[in-house]
């Protein structure tokens, strides 16, 4: 069993937890993920390692309350235990040789982007970060990002906080004004990552994206997480989750994410009723 040692609501729809799992805490690197089940008989869902404390043996996860399993997970409190928690899975994010980078996070994708920004900064790279949210209430991790970034741009869709606009706006401005990043890391919804790739394309700047297909085992056994990358079938759980943004077939990935829409809606409704909660959008 894996104890929840700490739980914090970052905003109405995003929760952070520290889970006691010493072997994972000792090993996990930026870009890797874990798979957990919130209860026995529960679904296996992947969440990125948002940080870890090897001394205390804890692993940080930050998740958007999106449906059945994340509602069940959010319903747990410090002191409760998770039946299953396995990792670290996937390949760590490649940051070797990068001197100047831009890290862009969209929504809860910022939780995944933060360890990447931190790792880059700790290797001596200069990091500009761009985080994007729907509105002021959704903004998370601002302090953490500013601590490891040379410049931080916080964007909101409605302009209720930071600047109004998409994450691509400041990236475009920087590129237009002559900033030459060695690489851009884009982590968030598929449309956002695709937009970052298109923004970087005219300047030929490499873009790493972090893919989030539906997974089960996370060890390469089932092939459910497959994507088309550079015309080839790749398994995100073992070959990724990071891929070259120019090579990913985003449209196919988006289609595959909706394979179980009706089931998910029913589960979500069931859990919302059960826990007397609404999904914050």
């Amino acid at each position, binding site marked *: 069993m894996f104890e929840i040692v700490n739980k914090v609501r970052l905003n109405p729809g995003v929760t952070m937890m520290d889970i006691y799992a010493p*072997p*994972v805490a000792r*090993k996990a690197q930026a870009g890797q993920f874990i798979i957990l*089940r919130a209860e026995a*008989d*529960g*679904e*296996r869902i992947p969440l990125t390692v948002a940080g870890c404390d090897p001394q205390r043996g804890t692993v940080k996860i930050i998740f958007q309350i999106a449906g*059945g*399993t994340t509602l069940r997970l959010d319903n747990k409190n410090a002191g409760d235990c998770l*039946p*299953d*928690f*396995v*990792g*670290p*899975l996937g390949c760590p994010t490649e940051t070797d040789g990068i001197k100047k980078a831009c890290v862009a996070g969209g929504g809860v994708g910022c939780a995944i982007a933060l360890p990447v920004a931190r790792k880059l900064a700790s290797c001596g790279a200069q990091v500009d970060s761009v985080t994007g949210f729907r509105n002021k209430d959704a903004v998370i991790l601002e302090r953490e990002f500013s601590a490891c970034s040379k410049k931080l741009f916080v964007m909101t869709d409605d302009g209720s906080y930071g600047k109004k606009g998409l994450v691509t706006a400041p990236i475009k401005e920087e590129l237009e004004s002559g900033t030459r990043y060695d690489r851009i890391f884009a982590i968030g919804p598929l449309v956002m990552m695709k937009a970052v790739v298109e923004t970087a394309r005219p300047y030929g700047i490499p873009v790493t994206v972090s893919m989030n297909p539906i997974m*089960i*085992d996370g*060890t*390469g*056994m*089932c*092939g*459910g997480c*497959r*994507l*088309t990358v550079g015309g080839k*079938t790749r*398994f995100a759980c*073992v070959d990724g989750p990071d891929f070259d943004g120019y090579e990913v077939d985003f449209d*196919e990935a988006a*289609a*595959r994410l*909706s*394979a*179980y*829409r009706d*089931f*998910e809606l029913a*589960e979500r409704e069931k859990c919302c009723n059960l826990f007397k909660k609404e999904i914050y959008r």
Partner: protein
Amino acid sequence: MKTCKTQMPVRDPEERARDFGEVALGYTEELAVAEAQRCLNCKNRPCVEGCPVNVSIPEFISKMVKRDFEGAYNIISENSSLPAVCGRVCPQETQCESKCTLGIKFEPVAIGRLERFAADFHNAASPAEPEYPQFNGHKVAVVGSGPSGLSCAGELAKLGYGVTVFEALHIAGGVLVYGIPEFRLPKEIVARETKRLEAHGVTIKTNTVIGKTFTVDELFEEGYEAVFIGSGAGLPNFMGIPGENLKGVYSANEFLTRVNLMKAYEKDAQTPVMRAKNVAVVGGGNVAMDAARTALRLGAESVRIVYRRSMEELPARKEEVEHAREEGVIFDLLRNPVEICGYLNPADPRDPANGFVRALKLIKCELGEPDEKGRRRPVEIAGSEYETEADCVIMAIGTSPNPLIKNTTSGLEVNRRGGIVVEEKTGKTSREGVFAGGDAVTGAATVILAMGAGKTAAKAIDGYIRSKVQKR
């Protein structure tokens, strides 16, 4: 003497094809004795040759004639650690039963059914387990809890070793829990085996991926003196034809994992699986049969097996093919898929049906010259393509080794295909103290071979650790 096997009671096809309860009910005592009496007890024991782990078949059968079922069980367990499993899933028709003297003129003795009866009898009686020796002070790590890992762990525990089994998934059992369905192998049987091991002091650590959570080197640093790798067959293959990533296309591993491991067939399941109307399963092995019969049980109206050779070459166990036919699975033989066609509503890009499978395009084949294995090669007939309606396509066309352990273990040699290279008689790999067996070595094979490899390696590990102790 009866010329045919004593029939084993099975559930009515109409009824059983709608639920996940076990299909074959097993012999009664009377039926078991009647079948046991058919055995000629031949001197040269050809059946024993046919068994990959050389169970003393005529000996256990003669115990059954005398109604000493526990005695029969004890004889089987000298060579097999999973009789209740093997009695249900071994391809007896190509192993022991294929060598049976009776089989030359008549039907062979139903050795598998007798084995199953002896094991079920033993389990129902649940007699006291033999005492295992005290911990001998030596720790061994086993990677993977499939039949190879479980049998290796069991043998080592019998010798007094402190064994820890590391399993990536949340339940132990390997393919026995995530692959082979409940209606063919009740999960309770597998759970009993893992509980028995735990009762004998074997530690099973689930949620642990070797190569990720710990490396093999770290296991040695932790004080394990030897490591057995039984990590299974690996990643599912796809054909590389257009449309394979449409919604509604599964690998058999994914489809079966959703249903068996995640229990997606249960009413309140939290893991989804598609409930399709018309299912096509590509492949002809046990995996394909299991996927097809599972799809039926999820409520499909039509399920077809698409296989590029003919009935004769179909590699699945004969009994499963029979059962599948009785249940209404259609066999589209001498067909090869060329494309999976998706639905796209030109008028409405937001139509929720867009991107799902609509049909499977097949090409007809004929059999040509035999290949190096002697199986006749399928040759596509030009211009014979046609579409068959399908909203779900399941690919059961084999697996390729998972490179995870190889990539994180220095000095571990693999062959061109990626299988771990071992010395056959011992399971020894190129890395000192590391042994391997089962599908990770041979590629997808059988439960009995995996089990045998686990036992062989256990003996070799015992020898290895003893010789190290002597040198000290």
